[in-house]
């Protein structure tokens, strides 16, 4: 293998590049980037950058000297436009093409627009800096969509003195992601900070009456995987680029980050994860497998969110849970740890303002497949401590995690399952 192309210069692309070099790959690495700004961090865009607390320079993922040491053929402003798997060529937006022996697809996602929408979103650094200028004290800001991005922007805007309205089609914001009790608690916190949270409001157009009083409208209704350029390539596209448990989409073609829908053997399902840590971990895993490591990628997904004085950490695959339980603290105190189960199995945990050492054993328990995994047990090749699994899932043993738990409720004990209240 002499030529590797990385399509995308975000966190996943950077992790892939660095891993290739760390693993000793000395051939040509070409990195394609639709944006002219490359290798910067996105989570701060809706937090410190929007709030004006950090300069753009602060979110560069690597110093210029570090990037130079990677010796990459970087093409800023040139995106991947097409793929010919038979000839192993990536067609570029500037009309040229580049051959590859190995390809990592890390083209990410783009914000989902309203049909008549040309508003700037908060996905790129330029857009975040533009929004920073728009948010002034007294600005009437309406945010369409109360997902994590919309909610974080609402929190920042409220703190900047904007009059914020947050619109959400569901009855409870984030209920599908974190469950109704936590979603209700988060909505309450926003209301206490002066945000007008309106649920059951579906906006399908910028001309909607619900937006008529707004000075500014920020649309945050999810995202679309950037797979358009792969149409006609023969690769399996759906919601993302479909990959196996090795993050492989086809021989020599791997995917990582927001764009990848891969089979996570730890949970026995395919998933596409738009989390910052997944981008880095999957970029590393894809690069290693491209070089022949042949290790399944079976992480416990993780994300965090900052809203007002709440620090939210979530581990696992919470979507589709059928049971929810507070195992430590209370919703009212805004200091708690909740668990999520599906068909009796622990699949997720969410902590608000809890010390890390209370969270860690639960994460470890999620990373440990149940002993009686039934028919899916064959798909869990590294339930023990193989290096890839332990590196991504946390390397402390179940025994030490258990011993370190100061919580009265133990993740390894069979705890009563409480039905989520309707």
């Amino acid at each position: 293998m002499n030529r590797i192309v990385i399509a995308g210069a975000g966190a996943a692309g950077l992790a892939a590049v660095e891993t290739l070099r760390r693993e000793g790959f000395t051939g040509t690495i070409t990195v394609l980037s639709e944006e002219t700004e490359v290798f910067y961090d996105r989570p701060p865009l809706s937090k410190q950058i929007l709030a004006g607390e950090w300069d753009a320079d602060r979110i560069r993922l690597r110093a210029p000297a570090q990037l130079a040491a990677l010796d990459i053929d970087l093409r800023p402003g040139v995106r991947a436009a097409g793929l010919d798997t038979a000839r192993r060529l990536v067609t570029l937006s500037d009309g040229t093409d580049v051959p590859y022996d190995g390809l990592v697809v890390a083209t990410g996602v783009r914000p989902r627009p309203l049909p008549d929408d040309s508003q700037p979103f908060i996905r790129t650094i330029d857009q975040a800096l533009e929004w920073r200028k728009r948010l002034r004290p007294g600005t009437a800001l309406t945010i369409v969509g109360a997902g994590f991005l919309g909610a974080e922007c609402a929190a920042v805007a409220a703190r900047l003195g904007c009059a914020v309205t947050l619109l959400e089609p569901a009855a409870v914001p984030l209920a599908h992601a974190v469950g109704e009790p936590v979603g209700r608690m988060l909505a309450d916190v926003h209301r206490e900070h002066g945000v007008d949270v309106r649920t059951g409001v579906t906006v399908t157009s910028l001309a909607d009456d619900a937006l008529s009083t707004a000075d500014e409208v920020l649309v945050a209704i999810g995202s679309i995987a950037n797979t358009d350029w792969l149409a006609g390539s023969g690769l399996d596209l759906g919601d993302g680029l479909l990959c196996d448990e090795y993050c492989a989409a086809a021989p020599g073609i791997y995917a990582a980050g927001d764009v990848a829908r891969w089979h996570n053997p730890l949970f026995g399902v395919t998933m596409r994860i738009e989390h910052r840590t997944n981008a880095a971990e999957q970029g590393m895993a894809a690069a290693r497998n491209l070089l022949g490591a042949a290790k399944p990628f079976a992480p416990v997904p993780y994300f965090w969110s900052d809203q007002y004085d709440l620090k939210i950490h979530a581990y696992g695959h919470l979507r589709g849970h059928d049971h929810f339980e507070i195992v430590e603290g209370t919703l009212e105190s805004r200091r708690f740890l909740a668990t999520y189960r599906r068909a009796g199995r622990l699949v997720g945990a969410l902590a608000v303002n809890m010390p890390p050492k209370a969270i860690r054993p639960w994460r470890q328990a999620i990373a440990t497949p149940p002993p009686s995994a039934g028919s899916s047990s064959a798909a869990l090749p590294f339930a023990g401590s193989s290096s890839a699994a332990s590196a991504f899932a946390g390397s402390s043993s179940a025994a030490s995690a258990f011993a370190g738990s100061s919580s009265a409720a133990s993740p390894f004990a069979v705890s009563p399952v409480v039905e989520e209240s309707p």
Partner: protein
Amino acid sequence: MRIEFDEPKCVAAGQCAMVAPDVFDQREDDGVAVVLDENPGADQHEAVREAAAVCPAAAIRLVEE
């Protein structure tokens, strides 16, 4: 190898403490990372590089000396 830790950037994810527990820990109250050894021995270098790579806040910078 020297570790430069940008503490205000830390989001308390704890990835570093899990990947390289001999070099990184977390504060008990808020989970912000603590560097236990700013000049880790060679036996820790691989784990530390992994920790820097998975840090979701890009708060860990390594200076290879």
